[in-house]
């Protein structure tokens, strides 16, 4: 095992991952440091083909028809030095009746000038599912630029779910852009939880198009910013089919000189569709803080508990 691989596993554990899964033959995995594939393993029904490029890795992921992958596929992407670029391109296809969950840890513990770009094209068939949980672990310098982009097509009677979490270390610059088209009776859920401080910059753009009859969509954002950090959230849901239902739910907590902006856009193009939204931006709720203080917590600890709960 190379030193870098050992360091990757150590950082992976620190970010909340369980490195022993990489020894479990039942669990598919992929470990990528910069543009080098350090480890790769697949299971029956899953085709996982990484190809190293000059600046990163191109990944082809296919879940074969009718195959539901039993254990989450573990992905580990990272740049350990303080400088570097990593570009990950994912082409994923989930065939009819198939399904997979992925758990990705993205690790940049020493970043001073690191760029991580992720570009995904995901095609989900009918009666299929794709779940993508992404956890970031950054250092404290804020020298990371993270740019994830995804275009997703969800077939009929299927679901697509993402959970993005960046609550350890400095965010740096974060610019997420996801778009999804949702078919008949299918479900879209996109959740992002981010904590920014220092001079972090957070931008989230999520668009869901509920174009299938009876489709459902939920865009949920939970962001806390303090110091001089700034966040901007654009959540857009467009319902163009009968019985389509959607909801945009955005909460941003602001402390110190931080700034936050939320733009929920809801469009309904069919008289039998319905989309709602709620957005709350501001200080931590006074009543929540005072409730915890009445149990003996000092104000700062009460605020921390409210924020950590929201980002959990």
């Amino acid at each position, binding site marked *: 095992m190379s030193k870098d691989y050992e360091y990757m596993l150590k950082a992976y554990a620190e970010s909340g991952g369980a490195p022993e899964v990489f020894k479990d033959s039942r669990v598919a995995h992929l470990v990528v440091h910069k543009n080098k594939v350090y480890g790769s393993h697949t299971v029956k029904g899953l085709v996982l083909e990484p190809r190293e490029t000059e600046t990163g890795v191109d990944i082809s992921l296919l879940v074969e028809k009718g195959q539901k992958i039993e254990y989450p596929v573990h992905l580990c992407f990272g740049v350990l030095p303080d400088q570097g670029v990593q570009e990950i391109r994912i082409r994923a296809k989930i065939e009819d009746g198939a399904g997979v969950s992925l758990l990705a840890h993205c690790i940049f513990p020493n970043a001073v000038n690191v760029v991580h770009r992720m570009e995904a094209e995901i095609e989900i068939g009918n009666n299929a599912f794709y779940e993508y949980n992404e956890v970031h672990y950054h250092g404290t310098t804020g020298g990371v630029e993270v740019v994830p982009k995804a275009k997703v097509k969800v077939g009929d009677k299927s679901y697509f779910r993402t959970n993005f979490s960046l609550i350890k270390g400095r965010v740096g610059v974060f610019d997420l852009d996801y778009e999804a088209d949702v078919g008949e009776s299918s479900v879209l859920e996109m959740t992002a939880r981010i904590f920014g401080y220092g001079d972090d910059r957070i931008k989230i753009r999520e668009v869901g198009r509920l174009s299938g009859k009876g489709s459902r969509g939920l865009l949920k954002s939970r962001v806390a910013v303090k110091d001089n950090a700034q966040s901007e959230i654009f959540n857009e849901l467009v319902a163009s089919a009968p019985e389509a239902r959607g909801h945009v739910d955005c909460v941003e907590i602001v402390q110190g000189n931080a700034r936050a902006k939320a733009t929920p856009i809801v469009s309904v193009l069919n008289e039998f569709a319905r989309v709602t939204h709620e957005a709350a931006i501001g200080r931590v709720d006074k009543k929540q803080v005072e409730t915890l203080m*009445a149990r*003996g917590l000092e104000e700062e600890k009460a605020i921390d508990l409210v924020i950590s*709960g929201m980002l959990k």
Partner: protein
Amino acid sequence: MKAMEGELLKIENLSLSLGGRQVLRELNLKVEPGAIHAILGTNAAGKTSLAYTIMGISGYTPKEGRIFFNGEEITHYPIFKRAQLGMTMAWQEPARFEGLTVEDYIKVGMKEKDPGLIKEALNFVLLEPREYLKRVVDKTLSGGERKRIELASVFAMKPLLAILDEPDSGIDVLALDHVVNLIKEMKRRGTTILLITHREEVAEIADKASLLCQGFIVKEGEAKEVGEYFKKKCLPCPVYNPEEKIEEVVEEK
């Protein structure tokens, strides 16, 4: 300055104004240790304002008067310091917390995080621990469930003084008996209760009661006696019934 021996809570000449309106007027109150002391009054009598002022909630700083707790003047103490001295409050409409489980919420106030006590507290308010411990204290709970969790968290904290703001509101009839039992059990375990209510039948479980009207305490004494007076003089409330005179109630101040 030390309060007189024999009082856990002592309030002297307390006056409070909110938005230019006086809501508490030269109020005096003594609560004996180990007692259930009811604060009875109709809507807008100043009951919740009194509870918030005792607990030190922001915006409820008295313009005059002093509050003593367990012999120590706490008039200008922050909320957490009052809580650390052994005082807490169950809110009439408790806050909800995204991501915080019932178990973690109850633990916040506990010095010793005894899992047995957490389960006992939930059982007391008719919430099955196995079902509720890992649930989140957010909008997925009904108002009644949230309220019972609030009472359970106060029980588990084992405070010297528990201020219970309308603990019966939003609770169904079946659970009400259990809430009453919980309050009695808290007393049995040494917690003094300041019971805020607008129902004389709830105030009946108290040892003593004070009747609050328009920010004044207009009558004090045995809970039963004050309850009967309340029923006779305050229902319907003369403040909201111009045909009767409020002076009749207030004159005893």
